[in-house]
């Protein structure tokens, strides 16, 4: 308790200005969230409607573009803007669900390991090491090839991707936080473990976990798009950014926009999330303060 009230307040009121790049990242990501929620309302055409006479129209500034299709059309004459919106919706929603699933699963496992200790802790720690040592992408390819790409299998694989990092972080943080004076004091007040975990320990370790989400989320997007790119993830008639990119790859020479547009969305989204994550880590990680 060396902090005087006067010394603590200016540091609190001095909110650092958000750097321009971080601001741009936040705007891009909120746009993506918006697309995820309302792609069906935003798309000008049905994303599956083909127009064999208007195939591979170029996007807006190029010669020969069609004003009805500002981002051009693909090899079947489908509107690229509409397809891109739906693909973004699928990819972002899947990555979000997968990240949340992994975060919840990993955090719960970490809490369980720290709380129970003994053989439960050893078993979960072994599972963590096991998962960390596995080439998960190869495993996912094998599972999808073997079981087929039912949506729940795909989602489960994405959820399991990265859970071990949450578990490891949570386990360590809980073990440390439990020895803090406030946790021991609340225990001595007669609070049951779930009270201490939910009201004191989880809120105090949330910062590092949120940072882990921002690291994990772009990786999950890439995981989904990579699987879809090689044809093991989302398959037609559904579409995703990775699948658009994979299809567009065949027409790189005469219709480059079919690959570059979805590739650009993937690139910008992962970059924006990473930048925002870096910024959040600087703000939330107490060890980086001062």
């Amino acid at each position, binding site marked *: *308790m060396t*902090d005087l009230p006067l010394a603590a*307040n200016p540091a609190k009121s001095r909110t650092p200005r958000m750097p321009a790049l971080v601001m741009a990242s936040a705007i891009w990501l909120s746009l993506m969230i918006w697309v995820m929620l309302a792609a069906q309302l935003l798309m000008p055409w049905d994303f599956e409607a083909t127009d064999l006479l208007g195939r591979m129209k170029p996007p807006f500034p190029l010669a020969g573009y069609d004003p009805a299709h500002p981002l051009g059309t693909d090899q079947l004459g489908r509107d690229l803007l509409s397809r891109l919106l739906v693909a973004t919706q699928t990819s972002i929603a899947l990555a979000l669900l997968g990240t949340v699933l992994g975060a919840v699963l990993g955090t719960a496992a970490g809490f369980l390991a720290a709380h129970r200790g003994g053989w439960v802790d050893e078993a979960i720690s072994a599972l963590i090491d096991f998962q960390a040592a596995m080439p998960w992408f190869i495993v996912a390819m094998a599972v999808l090839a073997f079981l087929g790409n039912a949506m729940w299998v795909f989602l489960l694989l994405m959820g399991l991707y990265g859970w071990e990092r949450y578990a490891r972080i949570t386990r360590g943080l809980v073990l440390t936080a439990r020895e803090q*004076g*406030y946790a021991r*004091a609340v225990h001595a*007040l007669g609070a049951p473990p779930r*009270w201490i975990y939910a009201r004191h320990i989880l809120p105090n370790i949330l910062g590092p976990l949120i940072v882990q989400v921002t690291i994990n989320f772009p990786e999950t997007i890439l995981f989904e798009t990579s699987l879809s790119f090689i044809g093991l993830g989302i398959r037609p008639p559904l579409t995703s950014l990775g699948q658009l990119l994979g299809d567009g790859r065949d027409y790189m020479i005469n219709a480059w926009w079919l690959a570059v547009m979805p590739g650009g969305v993937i690139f910008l989204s992962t970059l924006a999330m990473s930048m925002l994550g870096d910024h959040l880590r600087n703000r939330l990680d107490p060890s980086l303060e001062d």
Partner: protein
Amino acid sequence: MSQAAVDALMLPPPLLAAEGVRLGYATGRRGWFRPAPRFLAVDGVSLTLSRGETLGIVGESGCGKSSLARLLVGLAAPEAGVVRFEGTAMPAPDSAAWRALRTRLQMVFQDTGAALDPRLTVRTQVREPLLIHRQPDPEARCDEVLAQVRLGAHLWDRFPRELSGGQVQRVVIARALAPRPDLLVLDEPVSALDVSIQAQIVNLLHDLQRDLGLAYVFVSHDLGVVRHVAHRVAVMYLGRIVELAPKAELFARPRHPYTQALLASVPVADPARRGARVAIPGDPPSPQHPPSGCRFHPRCPLAVPRCAAEAPALRALGATDVACHRAGEPGLPSLAAMLSGPRPAMAPMSVREPA
């Protein structure tokens, strides 16, 4: 029915009683063919505490006083002996009965700086025990108890980092008092505070005891503070109580050589008496390998062969309970007198005997 039995029925049990409690810790890993090495932090301690009374527990660091505090408040279960609260054995830690009992006995921990959740306001944290135990009207009770510890109302919605050490200590005491306990176990409650703040907290504890009829167990290494707050004082050395006496008696006529040396080593703000200050020869032995017999004998200038062979039990000597074979012998010199002035030729004191 005999008169003694009638008396026993009439007398209410003491608020808190420890009967031969013992608590050990493992100090290493269990081997394949040997159990984990362990030492006894508290080795057969018995004491009682009445309602509204303050018992001071003093001793050097590592003598087991914090472990004894944890035993008395029920945070640790003794491996031998029993702690009784109002005559009932303390339930096992983390059982439902144990949780319910938390409203009756509360603890204030050593490191108050860390005792509050940095993310929650003062009010939220003082209200917490009331919510945990579903007590009625937590808001009103929270305000009442914050006023009782004399914390300014403008601080009630602040965060712990915005408070000074003394203010944090008031909040911690308020939180402990919120469920209306009968007993507060305070583990070094003022040792981290400035002397002027110490006095404020000690006075506050005194007033709270007078107004609420609280009983305190006050653990401290600071004899000066204990002298201000305690009604009775227990002196601990290596896990055992060596002397237990009413405060006035203990400070006026310390019976155990260790108590005498401890009192003589307290700095005195009086140049005329400075010469009387002495140091106990030798270091406290390792608690993993306590000496045989009386645990103080390797450092005690009064030790006789019996002290190394036989552990002395607490016995009454006037108003004092003392665990020393030689205490009370007529003509026994006081330890302080022996150690100050010209040193008598003494056997080397630092002999450390494995058990």
